[in-house]
Structures are given as C-alpha cells and as structure tokens.
C-alpha cells in the first residue's frame, strides 16, 4: 500500500474564489444544479449551499460581524469528504460499494452502489448524497483516477492560495503543525487543527486548520462511528424479545392452566 495521502486545508488563507469547486466539477464531469439555472441562496456568497452528490467541494462563507457591521471577519473554508481512517460510510455500506483504496482514501464504486442511502445517514459530516444522474451515492474520490496516474487532485491543483494542500498525511501533519505554531506566534491563538490526530475517527485524511469552534464551520465537534449503538441496541432488542416472549408464555400458559382446572371441576 502506498503511503496514506490526503488534504490539509488551511482555512486562514482561503479567499473564497471557488476555483476548487469548479476544478472538481470539471474534472469529475459533475452536472450543474437545477439544469444550470442559477438561484441565489441569500446566504452570503454561498450559492453551492452544501456537499452532495453533485457538489464534492463546497466553499463555506461564514460572516462574523457585529450588529452595526463596523467590526467583524470572514471565515472561509473549502469543505470536502474527510476520507476518515475509521469511515462510517464504509462501515455500514451493505453492498461493498464503498472501499478503501491503496492511498488510504475512501471511494464509492458507482457500479456497485444500489442507492440504499445507509451511507448518507451514517456519515457524521453530511458529505454524501445521491447523484441524480447516476442514481447512486457519490462524494469526493480524492481524484482516485488522477492519483493512480501520479497526478494531484484537481481541487488542490487549482487552489491559488495553497489553502488546500495535497500530500502524504505524515508530511501534511508536519506542515500543519508548523503553521499553527506560526499563527500562535503571530497572535492568532485560536488556530488549531481539526481531525489531524487519531483521536477523531482514527484521523481524518482531509483535516483542517480552523480559528473558531468546529460548529461555526458546520463541523461536528465530536463525530462518532455509527456502530457505537450496535451492541447496546442489539442487547436491548434481545431484552425486548425475551420480555415479549415471557408475556406470551405467561398468558398462554395461564390460560391453559385455567382451562385444565375448569375441566377438572366439571
């Protein structure tokens, strides 16, 4: 297996140009929204709105301004599939359509997916959705086809500020830690890495440098694996089955005993 590859996204240098979105759409031949008829969201400059089956990159525009708008800041973040080391989507997929590649990335094989949508409900980041053109669940592949040819993913290649950086996870982590240090020294003490270490789902192969709480960026502060409920849920169900079974046996046996007693009396 090749060394794990991924993205490090430094949100502090994102300028919201959406070149990553365009490059992703173009390379992956993703259809336009609403047949190309554009509608404005009314939510800052964000008209992409969300990650889904036809938007595998999404630049978020977060406006943090005072009420009189005299002070404030923009938070910009190019969101994408996290290619989790412990991937919730891969765990629940019943068809085996979701696989881990030799680059430690997570890819949905469109020809195997049947559109059951279990992965959509399982992903803690809300990354996956159905692509209406294929009728299958789709998301970022980290440009698996480009990686196989030794090329860089389209989005990071197109990013003009190097907000999105591609490389081996080991190298990216080192680079990201240095950047956090640099920001701290420059007075931006809020800078931290989200998903860079193993604590979060075994590590996110697409991790972020953020300067506010994860929730502000629409990221879960504590994402979990769906299987956390599997054992307890199964045991509680078994308990339910035992209780219903006992209720049934007691009621049918009691009736039997009463009938026998009545017959004896007769």
């Amino acid at each position: 297996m090749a060394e794990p590859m991924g993205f490090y996204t430094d949100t502090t240098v994102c300028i919201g140009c959406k070149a990553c979105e365009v490059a992703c759409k173009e390379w992956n031949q993703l259809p336009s929204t609403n047949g190309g008829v554009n509608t404005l969201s009314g939510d800052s400059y964000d008209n992409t709105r969300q990650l889904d089956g036809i938007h595998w990159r999404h630049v978020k525009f977060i406006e943090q301004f005072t009420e009189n708008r005299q002070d404030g800041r923009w938070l910009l973040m190019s969101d994408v599939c996290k290619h989790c080391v412990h991937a919730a989507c891969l765990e629940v997929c019943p068809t085996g359509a979701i696989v881990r590649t030799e680059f430690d990335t997570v890819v949905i094989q469109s020809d195997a997916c049947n559109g059951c949508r279990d992965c959509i409900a399982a992903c803690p980041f809300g990354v996956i959705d159905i692509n209406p053109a294929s009728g299958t669940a789709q998301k970022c592949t980290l440009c698996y086809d480009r990686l196989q040819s030794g090329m860089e993913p389209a989005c990071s290649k197109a990013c003009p500020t190097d907000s999105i950086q591609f490389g081996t996870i080991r190298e990216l982590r080192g680079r990201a830690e240095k950047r956090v240090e640099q920001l701290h020294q420059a007075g931006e003490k809020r800078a931290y890495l989200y998903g860079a270490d193993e604590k979060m789902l075994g590590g996110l192969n697409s991790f972020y440098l953020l300067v506010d709480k994860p929730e502000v960026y629409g990221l879960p502060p504590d994402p979990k694996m769906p299987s956390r409920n599997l054992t307890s849920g199964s045991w509680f169900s078994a308990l339910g089955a035992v209780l219903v079974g006992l209720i049934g046996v007691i009621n049918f046996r009691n009736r039997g005993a009463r009938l026998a007693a009545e017959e004896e009396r007769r």
Partner: protein
Amino acid sequence: MNGFPSSTYFSAPPDWGWLIVLYFFFGGLAGGTYFLAALIDFFGHPEDRPLARLGYYISFPCIIISALLLTFDLYRPLRFWHMLIESNTYQPLFKPWSPMSLGSWSLLIFGIFSFLSFLGALAEGDRIRWSAARGLHGPGVLAKVIAFIGGIFGFYVAGYTGVLLAVTNRPVWSDTSLLGMLFLVSAASISAALMILLAERSRWTMPGLAALHRMDIWVIVLEFIVLIAVMFSLGPVFRAWLNLWGLLLFVVIIFGMLLPIALNWRRDWLGNHNVTATALLILAGGFLLRLVIVFSSEGI
C-alpha cells in the same frame, strides 16, 4: 455546543420516506405475526390452531410486501441483489456489523421460513391439496423446528429496523439505543392487534383469542414504558420532538397506547365494538409511531 444538542446534527438526511415507514410497519407485522403464531403453536391448545394459521397467513404476504417496498425504495431497484451478492466477484456478501446487510440476509431467510409455514398452514386448513405440505405446520418435529427458527428470525426482522436507525449518525435515531427494542415490542403489539381484529371479524371464539388479547394489553404497557425510556435516553435531543411530530407522538401515546389499555379495563364503554376499536387503535398507533420516528429525524 453552539446551540446543537448533539454531534449528530451535522449529518445529512438519507431521504427515507413513506416507503420506509410502510416497510417498518409491514416488516413488523410479518415478523410479529409469525412469532405469535409460533408461540401459539408451542404453548396454545389444539383448538387455537386456526389462530396460529392466521398468523402464518398474514406473515408471508407481509414479508413479500416488505421486500417489494425495500426494493422500490432503492434508487437502483434492479441492483437489489447487491445487498446479498458482491456485484464484481459474485461472492456472497455478509457484513454482520452492518444492520442493513444482516437485515437483508434475515429477510431472505425469514422469507423462506415464512413461506414454508404459510404452505403448511394452507395445507392444514385444507386450502391447498398437497399432502407433503401438511408436515410444515402442526404437531410434527419438522413443523416445530421451522416454527422455532422462523420465530427467532421473525423477531429479528421486526426489531433490526430500529437497530438500523440507531446505527447511523442521524439526530434522534442514533441518540438512543432503544429504538430496536421499541420497534420489536411495537411489532408484537400491532401483530396481536391485527390477528385479534381478523379473528373477531370471522367471529372466532377459540380460547386462545382471549389470551392473545390479554397479552396484547401487557405488551402495550411494555411498549409505553419503552417509549418513555426512549424519550429520557434522548437527553437534550428530545427537543427534536417539541413540535408537530411531538404532538403526533402524544396522540400515539393517548390513542394508540393509553386508550386501548383503558378500553380493556372498561369493557362496557364500546360494547361489542370494544375489541375491534382497541385493535384498530393499536394498529394506527403502531403506524404513526414509526412515521414520527422516521420523519422527525428526516426533517432535521
């Protein structure tokens, strides 16, 4: 957490709608009626045999309906077999840690047992003239083995759907471990209600019917307790039900649980219609319960 009661609020809805609600309902009926029929086979009296047969008659059509609902809910229905067979290697695909994978296999296996018992019940009830099928239902060893294994799978089919919802990252569904238990107990209550309803309409008077009715009330009490436990286990996520869905759930509790218990206690309230009304209320409550649980999370 910046106004979010749980980390599950950052996931996306899978768009599981009416077909899934109906599947949960019919799947519950399929598994529950089979389990009750098996219970009557094992612990009932010979005069209750028509009641057991009724359970098998309901179970098999319901499991067929369930399979069709699930298939049509897929965005690529013709790929339904990908749930069981790996499409590129043609090897069986079984992931015991994925409730949907395990559930797909259970549906298939339960479907086979349900079909066998259905055939046996038809033969015993003289609805088909096939002597070989007579051994599939009745006092014989083969029939008992089929009923025992089928009953276990039946209960699995009735309850796994709740575990499937819990093994996601969606609000409400994955914020409690009790949905499997709730769905399983509810499956027993709606199944008993449907069997009582159909038996009443046929004017059956076998003694097992009274036992089934009594059992149903006990199960409704248990279901009520489990639903309250679900509400407590949700913690701050309970606020997802402080809306119209919560109101509908309140209706389920009042009309689908407490009123049937009250009707059983005061049997003179509706006279001859008491049992029928109780069964109808339980069935409607069971359907609405699934509707609230599915749609209240889908809306977040």
